[in-house]
């Protein structure tokens, strides 16, 4: 099984430096790309069926295609690597950032070349201190060796790259809020249209891509779209970093073919539930995805299959709920997070989420009311996509709506027993 994204990575060891990275075949993709036209690079990525790994699964090449090209395109153009990774339960980009920074840098340069960007930023979350140090070092190294800066590798193409370390907020991961954060503003999202591809950073054409998305790019160029597609077990190309956390025997993260089944990940790689714990359900791709339960275990973890379970692939990092953990408590924890992280821009989110949190808190503390279930349910509807300004609140509604569906009895017990059945007292 090929693991292009992680073949240089061994946890606990220093990442490859530039020489080692080159030796392992690194920067060959870039050399190839520079010999192609930007349009050809875009075409290659399009051919590969690469879909964004940031959560929404938008086809990468299609996103790029909206950037104005040609001499009269507005300048400068920007490429931003979204390394904010703050969604609870998600820890995949961190591995790539810490484990193989040059792979990401190469991916960024190629992608920037494809859209003819002038400046690239890596927007890194504050907590990733080690990643920051390694990225900083690798960027400097790449600069010194002519991979960044003026006339890269003797081509006519130039690119500046800067690391921006965030001051911390989940909202910063939302691509338009991220742009505001980069501009030194509050991370409120922006309305779309206009899309960042047209009017992004400082009003200029901008592409925002996830770390994992960008790390795929060198391999696509290097080994071709057909090879890339062949890595996958589904229509979406490539491999995927899948992670598992919660009460499983072997929590961790693995690079597997896109479309590996939940069961395989859970049972083979995470080696099943810890002794004494039963599986009740899981959030397949981070805190903002719908629960799936035992009946869905044979579904493939890819963008389209997960829709069949009314859920989403999201970031591909699963959070497992066991039988000794209160689902209402888990949802309270999640909704507390979302309510805390609401940027405060649109009413349904800033007010609705804190109300949801309040209701769940009451329920956990034995003050639940019969009418609460309906209130929660209506909120999951009212916070749906399109109702709020950005996808944060709809994301918050997903685990709740599916939680109400799959764990309804547990909610009712809270209300009837006027306490949390899982609490010791």
């Amino acid at each position: 099984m090929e693991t292009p994204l992680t073949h240089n990575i061994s946890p606990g060891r220093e990442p490859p430096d530039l020489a080692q990275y080159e030796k392992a075949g690194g920067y060959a993709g870039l050399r190839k790309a520079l010999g192609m036209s930007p349009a050809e690079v875009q075409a290659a990525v399009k051919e590969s069926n690469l879909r964004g790994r940031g959560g929404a699964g938008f086809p990468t090449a299609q996103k790029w295609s909206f950037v104005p090209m040609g001499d009269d395109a507005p300048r400068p153009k920007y490429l931003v690597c979204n390394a904010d990774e703050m969604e609870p339960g998600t820890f995949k980009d961190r591995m790539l950032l810490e484990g193989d920074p040059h792979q990401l840098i190469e991916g960024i340069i190629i992608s920037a070349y494809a859209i003819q960007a002038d400046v690239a930023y890596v927007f890194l979350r504050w907590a990733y201190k080690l990643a920051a140090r390694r990225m900083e070092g690798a960027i400097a190294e790449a600069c010194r060796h002519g991979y960044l800066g003026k006339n890269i590798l003797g081509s006519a193409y130039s690119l500046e790259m800067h690391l921006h370390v965030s001051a911390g907020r989940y909202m910063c991961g939302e691509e338009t809020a991220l742009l505001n954060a980069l501009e030194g503003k509050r991370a409120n999202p922006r309305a779309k249209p206009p899309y960042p591809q047209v009017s992004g950073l400082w009003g200029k054409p901008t592409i925002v891509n996830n770390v994992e998305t960008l790390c795929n790019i060198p391999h696509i160029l290097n080994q071709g779209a057909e090879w890339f597609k062949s890595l996958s077990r589904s229509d979406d190309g490539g491999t995927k970093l899948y992670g598992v956390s919660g009460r499983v025997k072997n929590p961790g993260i693995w690079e597997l073919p896109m479309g590996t089944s939940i069961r395989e990940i859970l049972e083979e790689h995470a080696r099943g539930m810890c002794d004494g714990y039963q599986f009740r359900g899981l959030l397949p791709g981070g805190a903002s995805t719908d629960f799936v339960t035992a009946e869905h275990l044979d579904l493939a973890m890819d963008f389209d299959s997960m829709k069949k379970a009314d859920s989403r692939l999201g970031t591909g990092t699963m959070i497992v709920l066991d039988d000794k953990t209160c689902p209402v408590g888990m949802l309270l924890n999640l909704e507390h997070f979302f309510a805390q992280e609401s940027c405060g821009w649109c009413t349904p989110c800033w007010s609705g989420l804190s109300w949801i949190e309040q209701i769940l808190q009451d329920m956990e503390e034995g003050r639940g009311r019969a009418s609460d279930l309906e209130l929660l349910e209506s909120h999951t509807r009212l916070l749906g996509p399109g109702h709020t300004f950005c996808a944060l609140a709809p994301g918050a509604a997903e685990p709740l709506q599916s939680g109400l569906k799959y764990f309804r009895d547990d909610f009712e017990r809270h209300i009837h027993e006027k306490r949390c059945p899982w609490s010791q007292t």
Partner: protein
Amino acid sequence: MLSEQERREIEAHARHYPNNRAVCIEALKIVQQHRGWVSNEGIADVAEALQMKPAELESVATFYNMIFRKQVGKHVILLCDSVSCWIMGYERLREHLGDRLGIRPGQTTADGRFTLLPNVCLGACDHAPVMMVDDMHYQDLDPPRIDEILASYRQEEKSSDGNAADS
């Protein structure tokens, strides 16, 4: 007034952006790095340097959670309170830390040594529960491990007269 060092660091970052405003978050972080937190004076200093209004900086400073507008202790303990860590027993650790330090989340020990803050997911969920102390991640925590870590910070301080853990 900004120190020479602070000014130089801010200027170095300012080169990455097309305008002054964009560097303001970095500037606040730099001031925090040097002074431990961002006081009203820190806000005023950055405002002056970047030709911004204190209100504009406050607007940014109060939005982001890693800019401390209240004084914090010498070491800041960020205990992950998000979902995976919660499932893996974060609450127990919170209580344990609270007992050991004699403070509640959000507070600073009387000797000014530790501040305990709950924090969102630290991105190490496969090794939950997790916390950070200053710049260091600590994973797979349980009460004994926490005691060890606290002890090491106390130890380090005694031996090296502070200056710990800026690794």
